[in-house]
């Protein structure tokens, strides 16, 4: 067992897959010689060569479109989009082509590829380096959507994503690259070595897709979350002294409905938390699903804790970010009923 931060864990996953499968290739902006602006592909081009790890032009739509072609010819591309805020130029290729190729050809063609992209705020990135657009992709039939919350899951889920024959959009909460983050920017940063999920096997292993993880068992309320908010919710729950069951979804689509339903049927109360804007966000689907499945068990309205329905503003980053205050307010609200 090694200690890894999320950057190292993701790097290890690609290193292992490049070594195991000659068809795995990596492409993206600055991913080759430089190793990526967040260093996630560091050293891979040196190790596997320029035909396996390719620097690409600054054209997200071209990167995804070309990666689909690579995949159709038997390769397993892992494409990096430098920031999730810049994935939109690729939206047509992702939605109209990558997600639907298997369907429209009745399985004759498909795109076994992964798009990695850093998401989320907390690094003073302002409105174009902080977005969490996962809700736009969870509505597209045919996409597997993943967001890990720690190094162990990140490596295991990325390996599963590369190995699956379905296309995956893999979101990496950039605020978690170097350590867990409980939502308080004033606390000194803590490294992953302080966290048990910072313990990562060196070799190949996988974390199954579509399987949520109960990171804290509890009976008073179910907290459904993913990504950075997993840590914020854990801190908030401890601080509020609430016996909450916290579920880290890890895979957003296909959703592990069973785990959610079991938990909410047990607790009768539910808080849903994500960093993305609220209106029409993924939390709405979670709320609707839980309501449909657990209505008769609910003792209080399901609460959503989210970013506000505005772009992510540079100066108001911490007023925007759904921190512990907002989570605790929701817990109190759902528990007082």
């Amino acid at each position: 067992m090694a200690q890894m931060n999320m950057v190292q864990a993701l790097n290890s996953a690609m290193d292992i897959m490049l070594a195991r499968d000659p068809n795995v290739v990596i492409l993206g902006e600055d991913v080759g010689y430089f190793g990526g602006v967040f260093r996630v592909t560091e050293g891979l081009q040196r190790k596997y060569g320029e035909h396996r790890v390719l620097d690409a032009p600054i054209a997200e739509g071209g990167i995804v479109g070309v990666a689909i072609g690579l995949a159709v010819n038997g390769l397993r591309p892992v494409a990096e989009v430098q920031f999730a805020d810049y994935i939109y130029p690729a939206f047509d290729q992702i939605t109209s082509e990558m997600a639907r190729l298997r369907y429209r050809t009745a399985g004759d063609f498909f795109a076994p590829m992964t798009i990695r992209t850093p998401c989320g705020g907390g690094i003073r990135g302002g409105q174009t380096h902080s977005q969490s657009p996962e809700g736009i992709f969870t509505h597209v039939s045919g996409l597997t959507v993943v967001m890990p919350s720690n190094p162990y899951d990140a490596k295991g889920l990325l390996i599963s994503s590369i190995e699956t024959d379905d296309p995956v959009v893999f979101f990496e909460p950039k605020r978690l690259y170097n350590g867990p983050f409980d939502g308080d920017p004033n606390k000194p940063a803590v490294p992953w070595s302080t966290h048990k999920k910072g313990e990562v096997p060196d070799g190949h292993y996988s974390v199954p897709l579509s399987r949520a993880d109960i990171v804290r068992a509890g009976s008073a309320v179910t907290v459904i979350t993913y990504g950075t908010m997993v840590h914020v919710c854990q801190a908030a729950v401890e601080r509020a002294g609430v016996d909450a069951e916290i579920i880290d979804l890890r895979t957003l689509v296909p959703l592990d409905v069973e785990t959610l339903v079991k938990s909410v049927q047990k607790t009768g109360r539910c808080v849903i938390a994500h960093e993305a804007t609220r209106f029409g966000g993924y939390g709405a689907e979670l709320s609707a699903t839980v309501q449909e499945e657990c209505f008769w068990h609910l003792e209080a309205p399901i609460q959503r804790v989210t970013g506000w329905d505005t772009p992510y503003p540079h100066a108001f980053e911490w007023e925007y970010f759904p921190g512990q205050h907002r989570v605790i307010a929701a817990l109190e609200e759902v528990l007082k009923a």
Partner: protein
Amino acid sequence: MVQRSRLHIPHAPARPGEEPDFSYLDLSPAGKVGKPSVHARTRDIEDLAGSLVRVIDDEHEAVGPWNPNLSDADLQVGLRHMMVNRIFDDRMVNWQRQGKISFYIKSTGEEAVSVAQAMALRPGDMLFPSYRNQGLFIARGRPLVDLMCQCLSNTRDMCKGRQMPIMYHWRDGKIFSISGNLTTQYPHAVGWAMAAAIKGEDHVAASWVGDGSTAEADFHYALLFASVYNAPVILNVVNNQYAISTFQGFAGGERRPFAARGLGFGMPGIRVDGNDFLAVYAVTQWAAERARQGEGPTLIEHVTYRAGAHSTSDDPSRYRPKNEWSKWPLGDPIERLKQHLIGNGRWSEARHEALKAELDADVVAAWKEAVSYGSLNDGPQLSGDLMFEDVFKEMPTHLKRQREQLRAEGD
């Protein structure tokens, strides 16, 4: 309002009621354009993007350096494929009018592009077509019945009822899936070609888009990635002068031919008479050779004319003169190859008519078989359950539940 004229609005050469006018076309005489080595440097062959490669002259003779010198057999096979393409299209449009299929797109007048190119490429080369390339499937030998079954969305539909008519694909024939979204296949072809190079295979990829489709981002991405990585790919622009109602000038074809779009990336472009079977064949062979020998991508512009409506949903008499095709200076690709063969005494009107009748009978017979497998409205039907398959490799819970729900609705 002098300044107002600073805004330029392209105009179609003629609108309904006006006389067709193709004076805007730059045409080179057959045989006049030189044929450079496949190793020529782009900057030395830029003129190929402006001139027009033609082989069959007005006397139906094959002339000049681009003459591919095909055997009688090959020429007759090419003619036959184009005839099948034409007859198939005409019949399908009629069956669409009779409500047997929901939609159709014909390629009348453009048959030489798909047929000659499919013949000039190797079986291992991968094709990424647009919706007007049915000739690729025909020339590569996909039974018409299969194409018809797709258009019928019947029990033998290769797409299991999920695609509109004509959105074919053929994995074993190495023809990619046709998308309803224009130009998306262009970067796919480049990626496929890059993978071939990465894997050390000598296959080539080819893709097709129309003049109007060159406006989409994917056209730019494909040219960029192909030139940066020197991908072994042939990028074809089938300039049939129109994008539905819109003249190619709105795609930027007014000032410079589409073949010149690659020059700024250092990618050679070559403009060819798209209705000249021999010229299209030769140019394709040349581009494929460049790609196979590591000289990289080529952009080919095929100058042709969309003889029919855009699709069965379109009525071109609303936006262009009815008699435009009859005035089209590059003629009819089938007629031209036919006359070429006749001129050399290797074909005759009589044999042509006989073959036409035979092929028409084949098409009708194929249709009889195809409808026996059902259609949207009659006969055996695909199970609605199929709707939920292939969204993912394995069906997730939420789709299984939706399938159950649909079954319940059925009751």
